[in-house]
């Protein structure tokens, strides 16, 4: 069977996703048995010329958010060239941290005025950062900032090995949703649009115990040294585990810091921010209206907290937002 032709591309990001893929080095020996990496600018320095022949890419892993015209063209070009396009990492899947810039207009003192008119030209920065799904249809998602290696490996096995991986029924694959793990084990493609992560919320795999499901005071992250082993939300810390897709195993909550949602919203959640407001409202133990008001006043930066990684693609209020609309909002 011919090897799958694989591309890995990074748009606006920090190279953590590339390094996570590079870090699969123990599996790479097996991986290159069924895959030929034909395009990886970060590691191999491949130019776009290598994609100019008529041969299609079988699987493309696209990392990074879409922040420039060049990123957008790369997304369009790789979508056209690849049979299967994977949004790899929170930036590609949801816009990631760079998507936070959509909350305020550009600061001209910080960002140079990109120019196409003078030499050397610089790709024009878009006024609105988006994720890959905001530009082209995406076949699969591997969330996380960066994605964890077990999930990356499960994705590689599912999409690239084509049933040839001897270890496809691995532990990481077995922990995926049933439809995906069954597909991986059978050597067929998982359902289109699948996310290589869990279905439930982070709370389902968090090591911390829920006890009272009530809290009477909201704390900012620096104001409390939380009890070990007890749910952070119950202790009054804003933790987004209950609205976030599981798969990381609760990495952040395990070290005593709240989840901020880098795996995107859980399957059953429509909008992570709305879910969080609803959950906090129902968990807060307020006897009087004044107490509730005081508590509400302690909520700060809801958009920047509840949509930390997902503002560009998963905020229901901004659904369908375009660069043109963003320009109109900010008057630029």
């Amino acid at each position, binding site marked *: 069977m011919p090897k799958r032709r694989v591309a890995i591309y990074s748009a606006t990001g920090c190279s*953590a996703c590339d390094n996570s893929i590079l870090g699969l080095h123990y599996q790479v020996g097996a991986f290159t048995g069924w895959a030929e990496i034909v395009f990886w600018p970060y590691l191999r320095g491949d130019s776009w010329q290598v994609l100019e022949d008529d041969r299609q890419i079988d699987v493309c892993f696209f990392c990074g958010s879409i922040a420039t015209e060049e990123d957008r063209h790369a997304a369009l070009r790789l979508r056209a060239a690849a049979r299967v396009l994977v949004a790899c990492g929170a930036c590609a899947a949801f816009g990631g941290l760079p998507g936070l810039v959509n909350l305020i207009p550009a600061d001209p003192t910080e*960002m140079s005025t990109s120019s196409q008119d003078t030499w050397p030209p610089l790709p024009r920065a878009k006024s609105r950062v988006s994720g890959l799904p905001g530009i082209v249809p995406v076949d699969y998602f591997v969330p996380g900032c960066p994605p964890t290696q077990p999930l990356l490996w499960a994705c590689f096995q599912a999409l690239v090995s084509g049933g040839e991986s001897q270890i496809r029924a691995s532990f990481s694959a077995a922990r995926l949703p049933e439809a995906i793990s069954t597909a991986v084990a059978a050597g067929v493609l998982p359902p289109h649009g699948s996310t290589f992560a869990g279905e439930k919320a982070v709370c389902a795999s968090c090591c911390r115990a829920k006890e009272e499901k009530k809290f009477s005071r909201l704390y900012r992250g620096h104001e409390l040294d939380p009890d070990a082993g007890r749910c952070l939300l119950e202790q009054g810390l804003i933790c987004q585990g209950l609205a976030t897709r599981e798969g990381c195993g609760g990495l952040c909550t395990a070290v005593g810091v709240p989840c901020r949602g880098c795996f995107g919203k859980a399957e059953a959640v429509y909008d992570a921010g709305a879910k969080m407001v609803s959950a906090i409202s129902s968990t807060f133990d307020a006897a009087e209206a004044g107490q509730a008001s005081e508590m509400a006043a302690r909520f700060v930066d809801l958009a920047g907290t509840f949509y930390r990684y997902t503002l560009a693609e998963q905020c229901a209020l901004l659904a369908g937002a375009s660069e043109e609309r963003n320009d109109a909002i900010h008057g630029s």
Partner: protein
Amino acid sequence: MQYTVLEPLRWQDRPARISVEEADGRLNAYYQITVPWQVSRMCLGRPVEEIPRILPILSPAHHIVSAMTLDRLFQVEPPPLAVNMRQALISTQYFVHHMRKLYFLFCSQIDPFREYHIRGNDSGKPFVSSRVLDAMMHGVALAEEAATILGGRPEHPVSVVPGGVGRFLKPPHYERLAEIAEQSLKRAMEAARAFHERFVNGSEISTGILELHLEPVASLALSRDMSHILVTDEAGNEKAPIPPESVFETVGLHFEPWTYQPFAYFLEKDWKGPEEGMERFFVVGSLARLNTGRPYDHSLAETERQLLLSTLGSPPHFSLIAAFWSLVTELIDSAESMKEQFTQEKLTGPAIRSVPVTMGERGFASMESPEGFIAHRYEVNDQGLVQSIQVLDAASENNAVRCAIARAVIEASRSGTVERDRTKAMIEVSLLPF
């Protein structure tokens, strides 16, 4: 007028390219970062305690310096255990960063993924054997595991919080960290041996790949006790030390319309681009730490540094071989630091965190990250929301040096008959240690 673009460049944290312009015998080479990194827009309006979870996108060390900035803002002293855990985390970051750079150097003439597949077949002519490359990446994986234990996640750590760290370690962690430290030192020494065999005792210096010398430039690094910034000029003379708190009054950032990466430069001299000379610029990172004469506390690293000095002479150094060699010495030092720090005694204590009870208006902190000197300054309103933020990162500080390197390699290539692909590869290797 002739224009050439060399892209994409390998191993750059952000996509980059070299644009070359030639006219009437005059050559300009531009090192361009082609994607924006709008730090202020990401951070303004955020609760300040969240900044350590946003800025690690610049590099993992920014997580720690951001939390240190909050220590000052909230006027808290982290307990000794937290300080030790932070230092241990920094050591893993040095190890991962430097080992990965050396790995890229060693496989710069091959396709590492193809090489893994055809292991045992020498057709790719790697600088070192696949076994050594495997060992190096095994070392990276182990150090990342240690970083996960100490920082929650390796690439974007989360566990350092204002006033301390987020959790205590447990007995299995101590055992595993000790194993990792032992293994990491072996991997570091193995990488050092490979470097010596191929680049110091071997033929690679004389055959060209590391022959390049940078245009002499000042070096800037934080003193070991972090009390002041050391600066040596291009001749190696010490200049007056700079109090870290005043670095933003000493160093400015300049934006050019052709790159998204600003240039850091000494404010005492007017802005002129790197094509006008390097007198207003400086270099940071392992080469700057070598040039500012920081001896190591650890014996193997200090022995390696002395060997470097006896082979290449006294600092300052501006050769590429010195830049890579300084990575090797610091790799060994980080592994020795891990051995010293990854003990139950160092990583045990009664408290992990001091909870702040007050909040100031502004905070500042700086540190030496693997990439070089970094500094943060935040101002907040009475709700603790970020009103202004200044970040000095190593990428901006080395931006002028990177431009100068690109120009030097292009000029060297132009005088001979070097192919375009070879020129691009030489630039990539030359940029690697900065």
